[in-house]
């Protein structure tokens, strides 16, 4: 009885009794969720356009952040370094298309997936060679990202918002909005959606797959850079950051591998879900459930909606 009380009654009592703590937890979850969503977005962009599950998305986040900080350490002004890093991501996109995707065209998905493992280890090795393996501090101040916190007092208590988190949410929202409009309105956006639906048909109307692949990998690179800056500013820039990419997996299972809104909603559900779980139900299990709760949520989804929240429903014609 007591256990049931602790699971089904007590957490909700706590939520009602101290709404400030609830709000704080929700906010922290939201911010984490936004960053998961960004990583998942990088995956979705590439998966939609080329059917490649890009294992390297996580390391691209680290690599982009590392390049930015590394360039700054070598005396390059912050915004110049930012521009150069974008350029590096563009070169990376060209390199991936030329050296990886083009020679492997028409190979099965698992081979392309393995190739992205190769890319992962190349980026780890190359990043360490050039910038060293030590954790670095994100140049948040030089990029005029805010620091400190705002405290918001209500009659029930107070909630503290880190300014960097607010910035992260705003920047992520802007980026998603721009991407959405880009997909909807531009020739290239329409071509991207077309390629996602049918390679053959896209080729026949004169869409160049090579060009599209470069564009999606570049877009994923820019998303990775943004994620890297935000995540780096909250903790530090190190290779251990790449494990957060594994958190994108449950997000993708939740949201569907081909849906941009799915990536966002999925990210938020996972982010908020794991913070709520950790705070209210974690103590029951001795804490630390944040690390695996996301996967359990995803597992639950796999049972009931294998195609994800927004994924295309798989209907087999018999």
């Amino acid at each position, binding site marked *: 009885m007591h256990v049931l009380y602790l699971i089904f009654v007590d957490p909700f009592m706590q939520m009602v009794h101290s709404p400030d703590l609830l709000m704080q937890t929700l906010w922290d979850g939201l911010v984490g969720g936004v960053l998961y969503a960004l990583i998942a977005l990088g995956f979705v962009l590439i998966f939609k356009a080329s059917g490649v599950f890009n294992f390297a998305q996580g390391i691209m986040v680290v690599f982009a952040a590392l390049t930015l900080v590394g360039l700054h350490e070598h005396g390059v002004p912050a915004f110049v370094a930012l521009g150069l890093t974008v350029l590096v991501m563009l070169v990376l996109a060209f390199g991936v298309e030329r050296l990886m995707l083009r020679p492997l065209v028409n190979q099965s998905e698992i081979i392309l997936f393995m190739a992205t493992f190769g890319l992962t280890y190349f980026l780890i090795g190359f990043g360490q060679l050039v910038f060293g393996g030590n954790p670095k501090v994100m140049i948040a101040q030089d990029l005029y990202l805010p620091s400190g916190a705002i405290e918001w007092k209500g009659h029930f208590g107070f909630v503290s918002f880190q300014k960097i988190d607010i910035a992260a949410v705003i920047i992520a929202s802007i980026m998603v909005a721009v991407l959405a409009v880009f997909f909807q309105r531009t*020739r290239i956006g329409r071509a991207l*959606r077309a390629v996602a639906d049918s390679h053959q048909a896209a080729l026949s109307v*004169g869409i160049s797959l090579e060009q599209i692949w470069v564009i999606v990998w570049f877009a994923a690179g820019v998303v990775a850079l943004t994620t890297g800056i935000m995540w780096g500013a909250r903790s530090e820039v190190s290779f251990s950051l790449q494990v957060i990419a594994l958190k994108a997996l449950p997000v993708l299972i939740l949201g569907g591998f081909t849906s941009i809104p799915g990536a966002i909603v999925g990210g938020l559900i996972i982010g908020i879900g794991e913070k709520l779980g950790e705070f209210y139900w974690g103590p029951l299990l001795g804490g630390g459930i944040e690390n695996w709760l996301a996967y359990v949520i995803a597992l639950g989804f796999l049972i009931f909606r294998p195609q994800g929240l927004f994924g295309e429903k798989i209907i087999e014609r018999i």
Partner: protein
Amino acid sequence: MREPAANETALGEALLAAEDVSLSFGGVRALTGVSFDIRKGEIRAIIGPNGAGKTSMLNVVNGFYQPQSGRITFKGEVRKSMRPYAAARGGIARTFQNLALFRGMTTLDNILAGRTLKMHRGFFWQLLRYGPALREEVEHRRRVEEIIDFLEIAAIRKVQVGRLPYGLQKRVELGRALAMEPDLLLLDEPMAGMNLEEKEDMSRFIIDVNQQYGTTIALIEHDMGVVMDLSDRVVVLDYGRKIADGTPDEVKRDKDVIRAYLGETH
């Protein structure tokens, strides 16, 4: 049947000429020394039994396959290796035997995608829908609406094509190819799986496209009645070789053709 005499004079020089084209996959020979031409303004049918190499031939013309030997001249120029992207750029549009549509997109967007190569404004301005980019978008929309009216699919403009019945999907696919304003339109079994009424509609569209826009058309079709009615000239393939070439009447009487279709008589 159409008037061959009137057309014979209207037919211009060869738009596309294939000479001695051979294509094989590993040990399987799909095409062996095939030569034929497609003249400006005509409707050219490619027929033959299953596995005769008809679709392979279209895939060669459209750059999906690279022939091992032979020469293809398009618009008076000998093509080196051809890629689908370059073929589209050169004015070749096509439809597919088993439909290749952008299933998640609306009819409007599918046809608009056919205008990809005709859009030139920078993506930044398209993003903002501003100035010349806006005018360009409006112009393209207008052309697309014309095609939609022409194909009588106004009612399904905003419907995702994946949800449409087969006959309408075929029509959308034709619309997308027309949106490219091609010089050469390749149709791979445009009437496969259609009922009589749908076939009649599609035949009418094909003739209208040919006559109103002067588009040269090469089509593969199994329905002999349709082929004989529509086409100016017919090339017949069997086991990857050309066995006959001429007007529908000539082809119909050809011994080899009869044998290929009806089997050997002993």
